[in-house]
Each structure stands twice: as structure tokens, then as C-alpha cells.
């Protein structure tokens, strides 16, 4: 069943702040095998002009995707999460995420489309710091595959 178009433009309340820790950044950088010292050594980060260690570019997805749960699990929207796959992901950065940030995410439904029985939903997560400045916007396209289609992707 096609999703209700009237949800386009709906914005959900901002999430409680997520505090970015140095050790969480280190754990993520190690998990992706990235030895760039800007992720683990505050002095190396300062040498590049950052006030503390910064996070790898895709780190923030863990925060924005959790926030997108408000949309995905909205009973009024009625998305069938068991059929959802991640279609596209984009980030637009104002500045890198860094240790010590307290980040809050506001999720907005940007678009809803129906294509060959698949529901496609674009969710924008605007990530703000404690001062209210925009840090990064994450654009997540989720595809809920038609119930009668069998495919592995």
C-alpha cells in the first residue's frame, strides 16, 4: 500500500543530545581500519586546525539513523520496516563532527514516492550542535520493497 503523501514535509521533534566521545571515535576509526591520527590524537587534529579529534565522515550516520527511527516507526506512517533496504546515503557537511560535540537531530520527511510497488522515502536529518549551529545534514533514502517481490539486495 502506498504511503500517505501528506507526510511529506513533516518534521519530528529534535532528539536528546548525543555526546561524541573521543573513545567512541577511536572505536569507529579502528572498526573501519583507518589509522589517520586526526581521529585519535588531539595534537594531530590541532595541527590540522581542529579543536579536538574529529570523527570519520560517515560516523554521524549512527546518530542520524537512530533519529530516523522516529519516522520509520511512526505508526501513523505505517512503513513496513521488515521490507526496508538502504537505497542512497548523502551527507552535506558544514564542519566535521568532533569529540565533545553534543548533537541533536531533527528528522524531516523530504519525499515519498511509489515506484513499481516499492515505497521510497527520503529522510533528512539535520544535526545541530549545542549552540544550535548546523553541523551536517544526512539524507537517507529507504526503499520498502513490494511485498510480492523476491530479491536479495
Amino acid at each position, binding site marked *: 500500500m502506498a504511503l500517505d503523501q501528506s507526510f511529506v514535509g513533516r518534521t519530528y521533534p529534535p532528539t536528546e543530545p548525543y555526546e561524541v566521545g573521543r573513545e567512541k571515535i577511536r572505536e569507529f576509526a579502528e572498526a573501519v581500519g583507518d589509522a*589517520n591520527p586526526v581521529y585519535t590524537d588531539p595534537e594531530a587534529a590541532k595541527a590540522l*586546525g581542529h579543536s579536538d579529534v574529529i570523527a570519520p565522515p560517515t560516523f554521524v550516520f549512527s546518530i542520524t539513523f537512530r533519529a530516523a527511527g522516529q519516522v520509520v516507526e511512526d505508526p501513523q506512517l505505517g512503513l513496513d520496516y521488515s521490507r526496508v533496504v538502504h537505497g*542512497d546515503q548523502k551527507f552535506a*557537511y558544514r564542519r566535521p563532527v568532533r569529540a565533545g560535540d553534543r548533537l541533536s537531530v531533527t528528522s524531516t520527511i523530504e519525499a515519498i514516492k511509489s515506484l513499481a510497488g516499492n515505497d521510497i522515502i527520503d529522510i533528512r536529518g539535520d544535526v545541530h550542535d549545542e549552540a544550535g549551529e548546523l553541523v551536517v545534514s544526512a539524507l537517507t533514502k529507504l526503499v520498502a520493497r513490494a511485498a510480492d517481490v523476491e530479491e*536479495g539486495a
Partner: protein
Amino acid sequence: MTSKITYEDVEVGTELPVQTFSVTRATLVRYAGASGDFNPIHWNEKFAKEVGLPDVIAHGMFTMAEAIRVVTDWTGDPGAVVEYGVRFTKPVVVPNDDQGALIEVSGKVAAKLDDNTVRVDLTATSDGQKVLGMSRAVVRLG
């Protein structure tokens, strides 16, 4: 932000050094923990096959994290990335052996933009299949 590559250094068509990233089942378990994405298709072969996948597959966001390293290792400062986007076209299938899978990533400067930024188009393949589409980053150079 400090990039070790300058805008004057590059032309449209400049190629970034190719990199190959290895991914095993252990890599995926570790990434699941670090990212908080515990979907069993990334670690449970039985579950993955039940939902129609050939085997356990890598997190799309893991592949996305690896692909941008071609850019961030080139510029030196990951803080210089202004935009980054991908489409997940094919899964990276990760067999249960010591070898796992390989993801090969190449990049090329596709356009020189305003404000000392360039657009880099990335190509990521695994087992001969293109695993990311529309994979593009905008990065600020020195």
C-alpha cells in the same frame, strides 16, 4: 582545514591512488559493535540465506566508510570533505573464511568547483561487481 593537495595541483581527470580494503566476518562483527547496526544479515549466515541473500553481506555503511578513505588519505584532512553521497547498488558478499572479500576503490577528479573545491567520482567494486553507484564527494583543497 588543511589539505596536502592544492587546487592548482589537480585537473579534471586527475586520478587518486587506488586502494583495496579487506573485509572478513570479524571485520563485520567489529563494525556492528562500533556502529550499533546489529542487523543479522551482517553476521548470521542462516538468517541471511533465509531472507534470500547468497551469504552474509557487509554493511552498506561500512563500504561507504571505506570508499571515502581514497579521498581522505589523498587530502590528509577528512575535515575537508564538504559533501559525500553514494547509492547502494550491489551487496558485498563476505564468505566465512580467512580471506573474506575485497573492496577496490578508485577515484577521479570530475570537476573543479568554486571556493577551491573539487568533485571526486569514486568507483567501488567487489568480486567484479560495482557495489556503489553515484558515488561522489566534494572536497576542499588547499
